[in-house]
């Protein structure tokens, strides 16, 4: 089959690979009907996640059609079912899965020893996401093997089209997860850093969960426009034009936002001295993150407020404002998305027309345009928010 593989930092190729096959009774094989490049793939593309190997198939946000179901899942899934799949590979029955903390599943990562050596404990497995999270083949391919398919794959209702369902699997789920972690009770002000697909869905989700105002922060005008017009942000800030912390104070009567969502992660962009400092340290691998956004969240958040970190980090950060975190009694909540928990609910929102997740799809390309697709998404050229591949055509 055709697949997009990692070929070293900033290099991807489309090549012929073997087809996947059912290996375990709970597996399903899917024909991938739609898949997209996620911000997390950029961390791999850029070479900031260790444990990538040349030839690894990328991609974890996808939708597909069941072509084969293992013996243990054939009662739940049938050939031809249209399913949306969580990027997180989770067993559904361990201590963590039982509490719906699917991304913390104990039994999803076959390379758990590696993750344990780096992080103390291992999270779940993730499709196409380095050998730290299992070395599974990803979804930028014509076919994919889905382990624990009875837990990870959810049937898509007829009223939801492919593109809408596609983003429910990761970007929408993650944004919703971020808003959910804010513990909104109604009437809050939420600030969201990053107006990529994840941030945009965090904005929309914060409203679904009761926020009164949501402030979006980014530097790309077209993304800020989507934040306002499609996700409903009440205010937008261009962080290259204003001092974000000061501006947020001014917009919130001096108090600071009740909740801050970091939807940017380890490759945040910043100018000035701070930017140069972290860039040099990250390039020389003295720190693995460029942690401005989380620094700003901590600085800006109101006392006793909540920070939801959904942007991905991998290693260690410098100049982390522990003093502010502690003295302001902030809550810091984090994690890879527990997508299995949210998928059914998000598909319902889409079916009822409350959110149209397809609005982030700006580009369609074929798998053979791998390098161009990754480069366009990375550089955000041509107002790109998300690139969609349909490996078997539209």
């Amino acid at each position, binding site marked *: *089959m055709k*697949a997009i*593989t*990692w*070929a*070293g*930092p900033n*290099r991807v*190729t489309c*090549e*012929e*690979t*073997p*087809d*996947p*096959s059912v*290996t*375990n*009774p*709970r597996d399903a094989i899917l024909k991938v009907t739609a898949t997209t490049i996620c911000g997390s793939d950029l961390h791999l593309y850029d*070479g900031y996640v*260790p*444990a*990538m*190997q*040349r*030839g*690894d*198939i990328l991609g974890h946000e996808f939708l597909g059609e069941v072509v084969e179901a293992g013996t*243990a899942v054939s009662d739940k899934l049938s050939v031809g079912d249209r399913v949306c799949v969580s990027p997180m*590979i989770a*067993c*559904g*029955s*361990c*201590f963590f899965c*039982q509490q719906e903390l699917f991304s913390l599943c*104990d*039994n*999803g*990562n*076959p*390379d*758990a*020893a*590696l993750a344990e*050596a*780096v992080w103390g404990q291992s999270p779940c*497995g993730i499709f196409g996401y380095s*050998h730290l999270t*299992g*070395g*599974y*083949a990803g979804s930028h*391919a014509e076919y994919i*093997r889905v*382990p*624990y398919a009875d837990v990870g794959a959810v049937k898509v209702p007829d009223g939801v089209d492919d593109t809408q369902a596609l983003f429910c699997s990761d970007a929408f789920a993650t944004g919703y997860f971020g808003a959910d972690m804010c513990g909104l009770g109604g009437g809050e002000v939420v600030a969201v850093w990053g107006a990529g697909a994840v941030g945009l869905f965090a904005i929309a989700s914060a409203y679904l969960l009761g926020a009164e105002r949501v402030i979006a922060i980014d530097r790309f005008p077209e993304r800020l426009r989507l934040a306002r017009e499609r996700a409903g942000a009440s205010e937008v800030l261009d962080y290259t034009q204003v001092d974000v912390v000061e501006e947020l104070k001014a917009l919130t009567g001096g108090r600071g936002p009740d909740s801050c969502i970091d939807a940017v992660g380890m490759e945040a962009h910043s100018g000035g001295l701070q930017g140069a400092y972290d860039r040099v340290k990250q390039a020389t691998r003295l720190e693995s993150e460029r942690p401005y956004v989380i620094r700003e969240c901590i600085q800006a958040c109101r006392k006793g407020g909540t920070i939801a970190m959904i942007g991905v980090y991998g290693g260690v950060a410098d100049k982390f404002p522990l003093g502010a975190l502690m003295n302001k009694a902030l809550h810091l909540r984090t994690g890879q998305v527990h997508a299995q928990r949210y998928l059914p609910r998000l598909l319902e929102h889409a079916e009822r027309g409350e959110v149209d997740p397809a609005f982030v799809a700006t580009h369609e390309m074929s798998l053979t345009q791998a390098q161009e697709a990754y480069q366009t998404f990375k550089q955000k050229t041509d107002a790109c928010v998300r690139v969609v591949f349909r490996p078997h055509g539209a």
Partner: protein
Amino acid sequence: MRQPIGSHLHGLLDYLTGTALIGASRLSVLRRRFAGRALATAGGNHLVYSFFTDYELGVVKRLPYKAHLALDAVGALGLAVLPWVLGRKDPVDRWVPAAVGIYELSAVAMSDPSGAGGSIRATRHRAVTVEKPEGEVRALLEDPAEVRRFSPAGEWTGRFELRPAPGGRGTEIHAEADPADLRRAKQLLEAGEIVTAEGAPAGRRGPISAALPTLDTGA
């Protein structure tokens, strides 16, 4: 963090590298020339002192493991610089021994001198918690067919202790065991199968993927 290669894995690499070097020295491109002789000597030496090392895979355990690592380092450095010292100009004679020397140096650098290693450690007391009642756990751990599944290398001793986890949150298995065996037993109990990415389709791997996969950044 500990260096990832423990003494057991190091021993395996020793024997593999030793035989591979001798094998390589017979290839027609290397035979009867400096590069081939250098590789054969290095491989032979390696096999000999590995045979005498006091680690798991040593046969006559006389040479301390730390001294073995020192020999590795000296030998590797020698291999890397010898072509220059001897003024060899031919690229094969220069770069083949140098590349092998560098590979060996990196293996030494990743070896834990205490022998324990970060990822492949000697077995010691370990525990894992399983969301299952004690009876079910015991039944699986004592079933020879299941033991073969979760301990394919046969390292499971069959001695273990079960304790109820606090708060009624399942059962703790305590044993002197390979952590991977315990993990697989837990997977069989909780998920009903052993999670794997083996056989995952992939594209072309890089030249050093097989030996040092995590260093194959493709760059």
